[in-house]
């Protein structure tokens, strides 16, 4: 496959097109991409493992920090699984508030995406405009929860803060402004020639391929797959709300843009319904510290697609296993398919079009030897010895420190 005259260019782990470290090794023939090699694992933080060593309440805040943009998605998804195991009946008002924050989060995430997409195709004016408008919804979130990101509003058995009439008024006002601005962006996307030229026909993912590659969220919906957890398997208050699942049959990046823009309009509709139908009552029930033995899978429609959490409890106050399947992990398989035979210039926008969140997705990578199919792992002790020798060769001796470390006994 690799011919002379082909150029291999690394996009990442450090590259202006990427907001998070991830490696895309591209082989180019002229301006055309001949092959692409995606490598994840630059951002692995071991959160799943860390969850097992903390209590459920502590986990809630840790899980929230998986991702800065869809923090509420992860924490709600986790808390739903825990509540299912514990058999808690969450008050209605709490469910409505969760839905409200979820939709506000979707609004800020989609506006952020629109700006990033503009930047990737060199349309910085769109970036400046959408991020200015995103501040409105960020302010609302800060007013409701005290934070611009990582809201910390969920707790096991409900939510931590109630909303007042003042909040309601401010939200309604903000929705009017945002709806008007979004209509303007829909107009821009429909009329601006260079945007249409750059986006349509790029990153094609046909209906069959979307099903085969298990795409989720706006990526799948833009290929005509009507897949939305809010509609298919309603959680929180979505079962009582009226909204449409936006789909598009263009199958390209332009379709994904349209889907996200129209979803913004749906989100405004949902938020208005939540505010007007907000039931009275408490916002939380008392949850036990120790969760009974059991396991649960919880699904949630994050701004980027379906988020799946699996929680297994063992009767103590700490979970036995937490597993996160974020939407980007489902969508990233489709990226190399979308980029087949495309130009280098399409690369950033195609990757951006799935709205990737690499910090959600990152897994640990283990290397297998191709000859004997064995895992190649280096034990901690060997790594330790290696590092000491590496430094000794360069004239740095840590043997004093080494003796000390031995006393502490490294596992």
């Amino acid at each position, binding site marked *: 496959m690799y011919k002379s005259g082909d150029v291999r260019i690394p996009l990442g782990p450090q590259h202006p097109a990427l907001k998070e470290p991830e490696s895309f090794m591209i082989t180019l023939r002229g301006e055309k991409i001949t092959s692409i090699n995606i490598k994840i694992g630059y951002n692995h933080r071991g959160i799943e493992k860390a969850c097992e060593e903390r209590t459920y309440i502590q986990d809630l805040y840790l899980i929230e920090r998986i991702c800065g943009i869809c923090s509420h998605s992860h924490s709600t998804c986790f808390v739903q699984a825990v509540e299912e195991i514990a058999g808690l009946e969450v008050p209605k008002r709490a469910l409505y508030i969760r839905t409200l924050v979820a939709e506000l989060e979707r609004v800020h995430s989609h506006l952020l995406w629109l700006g990033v997409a503009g930047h990737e195709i*060199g349309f910085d004016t769109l970036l*400046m405009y959408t991020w200015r408008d995103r501040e409105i919804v960020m302010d609302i979130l800060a007013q409701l929860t005290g934070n611009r990101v990582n809201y910390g509003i969920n707790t096991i058995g409900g939510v931590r803060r109630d909303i007042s009439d003042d909040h309601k008024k401010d939200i309604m006002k903000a929705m009017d402004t945002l709806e008007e601005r979004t209509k303007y962006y829909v107009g821009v996307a429909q009329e*601006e020639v*260079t945007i249409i030229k750059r986006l349509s026909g790029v990153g094609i993912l046909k209906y069959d391929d979307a099903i085969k590659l298990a795409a989720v969220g706006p990526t799948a919906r833009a290929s005509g797959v009507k897949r939305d957890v809010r509609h298919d398997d309603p959680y929180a208050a979505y079962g009582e709300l009226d909204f449409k699942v936006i789909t598009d049959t263009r199958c390209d990046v332009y379709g994904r843009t349209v889907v996200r823009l129209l979803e913004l309009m749906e989100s405004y509709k949902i938020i208005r319904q939540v505010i007007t139908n907000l039931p009275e009552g408490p916002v939380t029930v008392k949850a036990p510290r120790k969760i009974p033995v059991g396991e649960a899978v919880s699904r949630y429609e994050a701004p980027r697609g379906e988020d799946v959490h699996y929680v297994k409890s063992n009767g103590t106050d700490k979970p036995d296993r937490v597993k996160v399947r974020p939407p980007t992990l489902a969508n990233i398989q489709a990226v190399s398919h979308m980029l087949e035979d495309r130009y280098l210039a399409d690369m950033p926008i195609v990757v951006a079009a799935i709205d990737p969140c690499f910090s959600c997705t990152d897994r640990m990578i283990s290397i297998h030897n191709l000859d004997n199919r064995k895992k190649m792992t280096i034990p901690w002790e060997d790594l330790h010895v290696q590092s000491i020798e590496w430094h000794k060769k360069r004239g740095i001796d840590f043997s004093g420190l080494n003796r000390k470390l031995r006393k502490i006994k490294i596992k």
Partner: protein
Amino acid sequence: MLKILFQILVFPGILFLFVFALAVEFVDRRIYARIQNRMGPPWYQPIADFIKLLGKEEVVPEEADKTVFKAMPIIALTTSITASFYITLWNTKALFSFNGDVIVVLYLLTIPTLTYFLGGWYSRSVYAMIGAVRTLTQLFAYEVPLFMAILASALLANTWSLSEIAYFYSKHPWYWMCNLMGFAISLIALLGKLEKTPFDIPEAETEIVAGCFTEYGGRLLATFRLAINVEMVVGASLLAAVFLPFGLNLPVGINFIVYIVKIVFIVSLLAILRSIFARLRLDQMINLCWKYFAPVAFLQVLFNLAIKEFFVK
């Protein structure tokens, strides 16, 4: 002799160009920012950036060809300054002129683009090399419409000298209206020459970092940036001389102000154009230039020939 030296070095030569180039960069950035609903930089920002870059360490990549790598920014700067000596600025007489200088100016303005290519190519970085190839590919696309549009105006004046073109249009003040089509074409081609959106393909940040300039830093980058700014002033002056040739016979002082207004007008148009479009892809850009701009420029040539045949005596 001393007067010529003063004219070359200070006014309207090198020093004036430097100051004006930095001022024009400020205008460009400010308008771009205001359209984007931002505050934009204060007036001294371009100067501050320039001084800061001058103070930075100069790093040359190990694999780069050191002579070429270091020489290119200076060549870019000198050629764009040289081009300015042949352009009529605020009166009908350029500093130097001979019959055929319009061709020389166009070629002198091509050399900076070639220096970007060579500088990028010889820095041996993949991003810079892809940027270099893109620079050259793009050059072949916009250069033809630009040449045709500017030469069409010269055809109408029946001369190949910029000073005589200015003289012709000051004698026949309303003929500049014939060249509006050519003005639009060359304005867009100038965007390509200056590598600004929608034609900033060679330095597309999200694809190839900074294109040809990826490996440049410190004094060398400062020189390159100054060269681009000077090129912007010189390019705008060329457009003003060829397509907006009015106010040349006004008293001294007023014609200078008219000149400044013309340049700021052209730079503002460039800033507006670059803020309302997304970056095109290379194939789309070449299509656009050959399919639409080149025929329109050719139409302008035919139109001007007809006008010359029937009206100009």
